């Protein structure tokens, strides 16, 4: 995977305008603020929906609360864009960061978990006249969703404590967690 990671970094580094914008006085703080606002929006809608499936606020029809989900997707979109900006501006700080590897893994898992929800329990719990109590499968998916999003936040917050350092050649392993050599594009 190391050569794939190096290729990824070289591709991201080649997108220069984003890096230039991010390295202005306001670029980074602004993108970070948006990233935190987006995550609050995501937890405030998807997280509350998960809690509802788990049995909180049974007086709210599940279908009615589901109408807030597009706002969570907006939060996710805000974070995908601001997150891409971080990645393009400082690619080696993420591509070789073990905390980032876990963050991506948790986000992907949360995506598949959501897909599983829409393919199984969604129709039942949002059908007209659906029981206020969600079935066990929906509850399991909701608990997994909540745990994964919290794990995403933690892995994101831990990024700064696992910043990769340059190394001559990475230890053999599935993913490199230090910055191998310096390719020419790095300092340009």
């Amino acid at each position, binding site marked *: 995977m190391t050569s794939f990671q190096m290729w990824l970094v070289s591709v991201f580094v080649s997108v220069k305008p984003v890096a230039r914008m991010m390295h202005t006085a306001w670029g980074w703080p602004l993108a970070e603020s948006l990233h*935190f606002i987006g995550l609050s929006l995501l937890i405030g809608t998807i997280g509350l929906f998960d809690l509802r499936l788990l049995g909180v606020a049974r007086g709210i029809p599940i279908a009615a609360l589901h109408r807030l989900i597009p706002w969570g997707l907006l939060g996710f979109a805000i974070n995908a864009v601001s997150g891409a900006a971080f990645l393009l501006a400082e690619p080696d700080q993420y591509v070789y960061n073990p905390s980032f590897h876990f963050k991506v893994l948790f986000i992907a898992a949360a995506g598949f978990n959501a897909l599983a929800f829409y393919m199984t329990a969604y129709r039942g719990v949002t059908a007209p006249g659906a029981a206020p109590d969600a079935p066990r499968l929906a509850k399991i998916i909701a608990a997994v969703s909540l745990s994964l999003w919290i794990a995403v936040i933690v892995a994101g*917050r831990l990024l700064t404590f696992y910043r990769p350092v340059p190394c001559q050649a990475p230890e053999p392993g599935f993913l490199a967690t230090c910055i191998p050599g310096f390719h020419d594009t790095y300092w340009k």
Partner: protein
Amino acid sequence: MDPVFRWIESTSLSVWTRESTSLLAYPAILSAHAIGMALAAGVNAAMALHLLGAAPGIPTREMRRFVGVGWFGFWLNAASGMMLLIAYPTKALTNPVFYLKLSLIVAGMGIFVAINRRLSTAPTALEGWTSVQQKCFAVASLVSWGGAITAGRLLAYTYRRLMVGF
């Protein structure tokens, strides 16, 4: 205030929070602070969006069941924020942006309490409030929480002094 800051910075709790390499020190506190933020600001955002017309099928009064989640986030952040303050009192307390952040949180929580009082006492949701009032509260809530988050993020960039003597 320097003698007070210096004293706080010399306490073992402050030193541990700041310097310990344990994941349970600074990293865990920062993570808790982000989770609390998501819960507190998230619940408020959901309520505000609903008051502005999103998800109209939600019985507004039932949103009070999520109030506890908002308070949980708030207290988690009061506690974790206190730890961050103990770690770096000079950094926060000499920065005007920190006071702006606290003011915005006070405003956001004030609106949260005002809305909740309506949700729990009015026989029907938000009775006695015109829809214009509702929407004003909702917009003020979104502005306060968005502002508090932004001000919080800016703390990492705007401080003049990290610690006494630095």
